């Protein structure tokens, strides 16, 4: 009996161990998200070096002097949080603290305040979201003398674009607005346009006069157009757009709801204990009744 039981236990344990080992391997395979010890995760960006430190993630590309930085700041002031994040980013020097542009954009996860800074070769696009008494900052900074790059988001005036023409009709005015916001100039029609990501019709890269290139991604779920404006090195517009948008759109704040997990577990354990306990109690009562009946039978005999 004991041998049979031990054998069965071994048979049961082997698949559990195999499953556990397999899960570790699959976690490595997935690897698309960087999970921090706090409650937020950011997707990894291919081709960028990533450094996780405490509650911050820094993605960097030395060849183009660009960095994308994500951090949580314990404050209720988004401007202060952006200042703290800029002071934190390695090797970035910004002479001025006055933004060239600021505003807000409403998304499904909340309203993000943004501030755009430009100073000599340094350009910073910083976004901050106040949630649960903390501010989440996603920041793009570049110090390259070869180009200037900015990221801005605009709400689309078109709903549910069905065709490539609909997308272009929504994206082009948004790009004109973004460039006007940044430079104060109105750009003419693009010299050329292409889709840098063939499998996704929501991407458009356009080249304009004055060495200006924009890469736009129309995120239809939120009806927001994310525009990256690059002046100078036009080859990297789509790449920078992809990297920043991946972080900014893929950035996930994991809700802290462990108490509801405990509540669900308490329900489950409580109900199963009630079932087993009630069966045990009924069994005990039946045994007592049986003893009484046997006593009666013996007395009668």
């Amino acid at each position, binding site marked *: *009996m004991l041998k*049979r*039981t031990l054998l*069965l*236990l071994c048979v*049961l*344990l082997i*698949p*559990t161990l195999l*499953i*556990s080992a*397999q*899960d570790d391997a*699959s*976690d490595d*395979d*997935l690897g698309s*998200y960087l*999970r921090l010890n706090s*409650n937020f*995760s950011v997707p990894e960006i291919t081709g960028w070096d990533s450094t996780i430190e405490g509650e911050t993630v820094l993605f960097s590309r030395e060849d183009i002097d660009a960095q994308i930085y994500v951090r949580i700041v314990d404050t209720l002031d988004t401007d202060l949080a952006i200042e703290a994040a800029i002071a934190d980013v390695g090797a970035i020097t910004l002479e001025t603290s006055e933004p060239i542009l600021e505003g807000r954009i409403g998304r499904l996860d909340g309203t993000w305040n943004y501030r755009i800074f430009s100073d000599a070769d340094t350009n910073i696009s910083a976004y901050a979201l106040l949630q649960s008494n903390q501010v989440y900052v996603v920041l793009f900074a570049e110090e390259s003398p070869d180009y200037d790059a900015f990221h801005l988001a605009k709400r689309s005036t078109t709903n549910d674009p069905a065709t490539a023409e609909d997308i272009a009709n929504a994206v082009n005015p948004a790009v004109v607005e973004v460039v006007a916001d940044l430079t104060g100039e109105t750009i003419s029609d693009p010299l050329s346009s292409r889709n840098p990501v063939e499998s996704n019709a929501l991407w458009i890269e356009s080249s304009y006069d004055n060495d200006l290139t924009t890469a736009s991604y129309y995120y239809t779920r939120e009806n927001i157009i994310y525009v990256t404006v690059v002046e100078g090195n036009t080859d990297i517009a789509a790449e920078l757009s992809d990297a920043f948008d991946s972080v900014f759109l893929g950035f*996930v704040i*994991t*809700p*802290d*709801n*462990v108490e*509801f*997990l405990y*509540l*669900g*577990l308490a*329900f*489950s354990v409580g*109900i*199963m204990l*009630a*079932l*087993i306990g009630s*069966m045990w109690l*009924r*069994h005990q009562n*039946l*045994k007592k*009744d*049986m003893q009484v*009946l*046997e006593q*009666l*039978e013996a007395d*009668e005999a």
Partner: protein
Amino acid sequence: MASIALEKSKTSDLELTPIPSALKILTLITVFGLLGTLYLGLVNVGTDVEQGEVQRLFYIHMPAFFGAFTAFGATVFGGFMYLTRRDPKWDRLAVAGVEVGLALSTVNLLTGIAWMRPIWNSWWLWDPRLTSAAIMVLTYAAYLMLRAGIENPDTRRRFASVYGILAITTVILTLVIIRIRPDTIHPAVIGPSPQNAQGEFDATTGVVIALVPALIFYSTIFPITLMWYRIRLENLFDVLAQKKAQVLG
């Protein structure tokens, strides 16, 4: 299931018996299976980045429904067999199925409620799936109440068999409603539905590794072990009734 019910076939043969070795082994397997599936769902698999820790309830919520389905299936089988053979052992299987199925479907319902509060921001919604699940739980709770109210054993068994067979419609309704009603917000995990037109099993490897063993365990070993104990209890009821009639009659 038939072999469990066959443990004691005739009321006249009933007597108090010690727990058989097979049931002892099954109990041990159940305890380890329960701990193993809880480990996989609560510890081994990573936290869902969008839903947080509460998503881990899914590894109990869905398997519990599968377990309830097995148990209610046993009730239908027991009911049919009783109506055709009139052997009380099938009625014992049927009532065991209802009691175990009711417990597991209540676990399913309450873990769903604990999950939906932080995710859907509500303790309850009159969504088609939630409503049908609640109707299913109440239908089987009514089975136990109505059954307890009938004195005559034969009438009680006949009534319970018919009720148990008809009640499975609430389980089937709960299963299919997410595929036929486009206005439900309850997600369909497997197969095509108004929310998942592609019909894919939209889950990562980690989720599958935690979920599949739990589904297998909850739909087989767990309800079978519980039902076996419940059948033994029902056997004891019959032994006592027989003894009572013998001593007092």
